[in-house]
């Protein structure tokens, strides 16, 4: 008997990694026939005949249905060993004389001597190169599932891989097991970030009936990830090519380019430069997988694989190299993975078959059957599962019987780690092997591990007593000394002052520039990410300028502040932070004036004296309901006669040594504030300096119900100087502009409000800029107060209006406006 040669592993993989399924083509029937179904059977249960329904099932490019990974969600990493891994030389039966007999063929001896293995017990040794696996074993975190396979083993790479990826031995292979799990998990909602293959194309196991995984590159993505104005304008042009009038494929193509830009922009901040990625592809892929988990994009399943396991000849060198790569990849994975994720991440292996126990004449082994697979992670119950197949009496072409059904192996993962539902995904033997010691996120002491710091992740506000966390003048929190031109200051947020060390996704802070030597700007962005082409604060000599930032905190727990020109000192005052765990949700409101001391609106009339305290009732006014816990309001100082500041404090507390607005004589200066309300729903307004007036405009409030914040890396949305997002014309008296925000610059279509930094420049006369939801009348509120010759910025949180758009206006004079997106609110 000779082994039937079949199409190669590479060919089989190429087919199983499909970009598209073409339901009517002969090729499909061929595929199904190959995997044992025969023509016409079991086609894509439920998929309609339209190809268009298949390839991007209604995906909104930036859609993110499932949201971030929660504290008790399990993440699964699937590592494919393509070509048929030799299980016997991976988990070596060191006490089995049959193994040592059968691995010898004439002069050839492919066995690994007991003393050369990493002994696990008296009968088992690991391949000597699997030192990381030995560490996991010793830590009780490595499960070895013996004898995994299926009946009537198919010896074709192509067929057997199709069965494994489909999770259906001898069954239809139109969908994959994770794809069907995704169908249930997403319930038809579009989501590009629930499951991903690190590689060029999407493999069969990630294809469901309605949902499918995304392919993300193993290297830093290209076009689509740049954030400069020119690139953004290009992306907008490509998106605008979708019209719906030139036939289905025309739009599908334009959308696919948009999707590719979106995926690139979303994942790009988490890649190191190519040169810093490991050279071995699987090692690099698992590093990228760890980075994407750290980023908490919402990925529940990540898959990666590599090939060249088909050791018909020259096995010793070949298999050694694969084992070395596997070990290096797992080691790298854990080096990069944030320890806070450990209790939520499980890694599993698969391969289309094992290999024969008998060595052949070519220093190799041939296509086999059952093999051991690894499942490991902090919450895995280490040990042996299943039963090691006996080698007794096997002749040259006999294959080992399997002892654990592949479906049982998968069901144990789905029910033990992915939230259950194996019965909806798989059929056959679904025996749960109970591979896990604890559910996802749960530590040995029974508590749930806090979520590690991530950028973004739908999060809620925790206001804190205002605290300064960085001051380059005194060296508080950072090195003392001003920022030079082009310098970047890393400011640690996680663990600083009142901010906890873990679980912080974003921070609300005033960043102040002091003692600037030249006109300059600061760019504030999440730590450890590439600096975007955006800005937050503009200032010049002689003017300390604060501006509120609401910014994603980087994976390193920090934000970074970049200084464009000259030198300047930097102060950072924290007012609150966002976390996915527990906190207050946001409800955006139409902009409304809450108080105005000039006319006694919402407050007693008359200027504010030196450190005079005025209570302002917030809850119950300007759309803020009773029970609100914090408010987003734009605080403006006006009619100022001398330098001073304004400050907001919850009732029942003493004001802190911070401020919200700083001003000079004659200034009209606003700054957004997110301020906690006292138990009575009020805040205290006070400020230094002689008589001055204060105006407050409300843009939304925080409370038990409402929406969560999603921060990303900053993206430029609008720049009238550059013609980005609107025509290349200043706004002005008769020229308000309406800018679509939803679906652009990373903001999804279902966002309800957006966090922008809005700057105005080239101001022709004293005036102001107001931003409001499109489709409504211009409110009596303002966001920026402008003087000619100044460039002024302020944070804006505004509800999106008709068409997901905002309107920007300056009713008094001409100016250019620039707006950068820092985050958005979603249900």
């Amino acid at each position, binding site marked *: 008997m000779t082994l039937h040669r079949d199409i190669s592993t590479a060919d089989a993989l190429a087919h199983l990694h499909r970009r598209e399924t073409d339901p009517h083509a002969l090729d499909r029937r061929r595929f199904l026939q190959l995997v044992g179904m025969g023509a016409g059977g079991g086609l894509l249960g439920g998929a309609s005949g339209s190809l268009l329904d298949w390839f991007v099932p209604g995906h909104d490019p930036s859609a993110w249905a499932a949201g971030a990974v929660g504290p008790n969600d399990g993440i699964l990493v699937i590592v494919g060993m393509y070509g048929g891994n030799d299980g016997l030389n991976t988990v070596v039966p060191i006490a089995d004389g049959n193994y040592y007999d059968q691995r010898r063929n004439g002069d050839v001896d492919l066995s690994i001597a007991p003393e050369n293995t990493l002994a696990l017990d008296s009968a088992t040794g690991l391949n000597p190169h699997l030192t990381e696996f030995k560490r996991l074993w010793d830590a009780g975190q490595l499960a070895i599932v013996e004898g995994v396979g299926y009946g009537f083993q198919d010896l074709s790479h192509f067929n057997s891989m199709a069965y494994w990826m489909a999770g259906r031995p001898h069954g239809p292979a139109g969908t994959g097991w994770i794809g069907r799990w995704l169908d249930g998990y997403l319930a038809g909602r579009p989501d590009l970030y629930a499951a991903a293959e690190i590689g060029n194309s999407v493999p069969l196991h990630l294809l469901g009936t309605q949902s499918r995984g995304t392919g993300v590159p193993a290297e830093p993505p290209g076009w689509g990830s740049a954030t400069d104005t020119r690139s953004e304008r290009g992306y907008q042009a*490509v998106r605008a090519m979708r019209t719906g009038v030139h036939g289905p494929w025309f739009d599908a193509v334009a959308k696919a380019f948009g999707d590719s830009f979106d995926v690139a922009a979303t994942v790009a901040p988490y890649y190191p430069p190519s040169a810093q990625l490991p050279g071995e592809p699987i090692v690099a892929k698992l590093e990228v997988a760890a980075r994407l988990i750290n980023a908490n994009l919402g990925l529940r399943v990540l898959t990666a694989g590599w090939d060249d396991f088909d050791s018909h000849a020259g096995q010793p060198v070949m298999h050694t190299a694969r084992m070395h790569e596997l070990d290096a990849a797992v080691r790298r994975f854990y080096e990069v993975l944030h320890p806070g994720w450990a209790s939520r991440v499980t890694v599993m292996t698969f391969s289309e078959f094992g290999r024969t126990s008998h060595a052949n004449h070519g220093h190799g082994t041939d296509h086999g059957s059952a093999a051991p697979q690894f499942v490991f992670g902090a919450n895995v119950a280490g040990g042996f599962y299943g039963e090691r197949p006996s080698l007794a009496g096997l002749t040259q072409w006999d294959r080992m019987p399997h002892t654990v059904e592949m479906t049982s192996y998968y069901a144990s993962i789905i029910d033990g780690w992915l939230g259950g539902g194996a019965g909806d995904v798989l059929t056959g033997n679904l025996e749960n092997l109970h591979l896990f010691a604890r559910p996802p996120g749960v530590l040995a002491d029974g508590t749930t591990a806090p979520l590690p710091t991530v950028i973004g992740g739908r999060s809620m506000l925790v206001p804190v007593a205002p605290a300064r966390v960085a001051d380059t003048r005194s060296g508080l929190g950072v090195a003392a000394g001003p920022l030079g031109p082009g310098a970047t200051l890393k400011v640690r947020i996680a663990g600083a002052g009142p901010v906890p060390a873990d679980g912080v996704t974003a921070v609300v802070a005033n960043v102040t520039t002091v003692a600037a030597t030249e006109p300059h700007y600061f760019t504030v962005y999440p730590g450890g990410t590439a600096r975007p082409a955006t800005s937050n604060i503009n200032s010049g000599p002689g003017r300390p300028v604060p501006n509120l930032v609401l910014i994603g905190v980087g994976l390193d727990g920090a934000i970074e502040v970049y200084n464009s020109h000259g030198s300047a000192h930097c102060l950072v005052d924290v007012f609150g932070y966002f976390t996915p765990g527990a906190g207050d949700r946001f409800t955006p409101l139409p902009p409304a004036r809450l108080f105005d001391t000039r006319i006694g609106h919402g407050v007693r009339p008359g200027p504010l004296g030196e450190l005079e305290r005025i209570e302002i009732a917030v809850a119950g006014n300007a759309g803020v309901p009773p029970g609100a816990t914090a408010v987003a309001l734009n605080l403006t100082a006006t009619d100022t006669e001398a330098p001073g500041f304004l400050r907001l404090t919850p009732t029942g507390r003493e004001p802190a040594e911070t401020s919200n607005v700083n001003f000079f004589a004659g200034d009209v200066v606003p700054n957004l504030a997110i301020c906690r309300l006292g138990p009575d729903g009020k805040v205290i307004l006070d400020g230094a300096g002689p008589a001055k007036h204060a105006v407050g405009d409300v843009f939304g409030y925080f409370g038990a119900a409402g929406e969560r914040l999603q921060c990303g890396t900053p993206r430029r949305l609008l720049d009238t100087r550059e*013609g980005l997002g609107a025509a290349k014309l200043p706004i002005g008296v008769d020229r308000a502009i309406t800018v679509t925000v939803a679906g652009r610059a990373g903001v999804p279509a279902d966002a309800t409000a957006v966090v922008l930094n809005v700057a105005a420049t080239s101001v022709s006369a004293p005036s102001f800029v107001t931003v409001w939801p499109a489709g409504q009348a211009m409110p009596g509120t303002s966001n920026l107060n402008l003087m000619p010759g100044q460039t002024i910025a302020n944070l804006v949180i505004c509800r999106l209006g008709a068409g997901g758009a905002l309107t920007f206006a300056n009713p008094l004079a001409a100016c250019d406006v620039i707006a950068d997106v820092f985050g958005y609110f979603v249900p």
Partner: protein
Amino acid sequence: MPDPSDIAHLLRRTEFVARPGRLAALSALPTREAAVDDVLSVTGDPGSVLPFASSTDSQRVVQLTDFWLNRMAHDSPRPIQERMALFWHGHFCSSDAKVGQIELMRRQIDLFRRDGLGNLRDLAIKTSTTAAMLRYLDNNQNFEEAPNQNFGRELMELFLLGVGNYTENDVVACSEAWTGHADWYRPGDDDYDNGAADYLFYGEALHDSDPKQFLGRTINVDPDAGIQHGAETIHVMLGDPAADGGVVPAGPNAGRPSRDVAAEFLSRKLWRFFAGTEPSPAVVEHLRNTATHPANDFAIRPWLRALLTHPEFYTPAVKQALVRSPIDYVVALLAASGVRSEQGTPWWLMEAMGQRPLFPPNVAGWKHNGYWIGASAFGGRAATARHVAFYVLGDYWDGAGMRLAGGTLSRAEVEATADSPAARQALVGRVADLMQIALTPSTRAALDEFAGNAAWWELHDLVELIFVSPEMNVA
């Protein structure tokens, strides 16, 4: 006079792109049929990449790929010849990933290029005995004592009849008829640097020369004609049932002449390749009757003519129905830019887009339309667009201008638009004209907005933006 939009459509599907000269010439012909005849008026040998410039296979792969893509984009007077070869390459699949000697692939591709509009029967027989096919589907290991059914099965299932139109006994018979076809060097022919490589080696001793029952016929009755036995299976599948033709033994087509079934099978595949839609029953019937007409008897040119002149080929549904494959896409980029493949199409970008000539993913070849679309694959297209744009710009900043198929746009001309949004918008039309591509109003509007707002020194981005426009990606 034919509708120029019909002619442009015809040219995009048959010649990869609608070159202005061809569009003008064919639009001036009296009828659409005359235009089709012109497209199909292939004369002469399309030539060959030989001699190879390198003795290294990896470099030969690059040279052959560039030669072929350049033929498609620039060098062929009748690109239908190359497009038809691409069809057969995706039909009678072999991949160098398994074949492992590019000279063998070269011979097979050149066969498709030379005879791709000839006769299906001849092409199938010749292809079956190319060393590339012998290796790719293991027929070189199909011996009387140890049959290998890989080729025998695919010959019926994927190449000529379609699945379900034969029994397992027919697979056995077909495989046995094809036993004994190994591949081997010719004695004394070991000068690999000059193109020597394996050829068919027919080993009588390895061949099963017994008579066999195949599709209701007894074949291989002459034991002395063993080397013809394999070809007999093709003669039966495509033959007249009144003479030597076979009959489908099972399935929905049971009792029908196998050649009718084969003609329908290939007609559908041709239609999908050129039209992009599922053919209507009327189309299938018409094409089948053309193929099996005694005067044609599986001649490919009249078969394709019937397809290209069919009224349904010119319906809006068909005109909008074809996403360019990555090969078609790079050919469109090369044609629009004048860039040659040596610069424009490195293999890693082809792989990122999902299609590399000479390396089909499996014996079933490539699929169409939605198969190519996805965020990752289109990231590859965007990277390719930028890559080609890089060569278009070349010495642009040094004053050479951007070189496109229709001419050169000087930097001075671009710079002159600096103060006028309208002039910058007019430049969109100018660049598209030089790319010889017609933009739809919506794409034009999107690019106008871009150009109106861009600074003059950013306007060369138009090259890559037009490269990723739907117009460039849909044929």
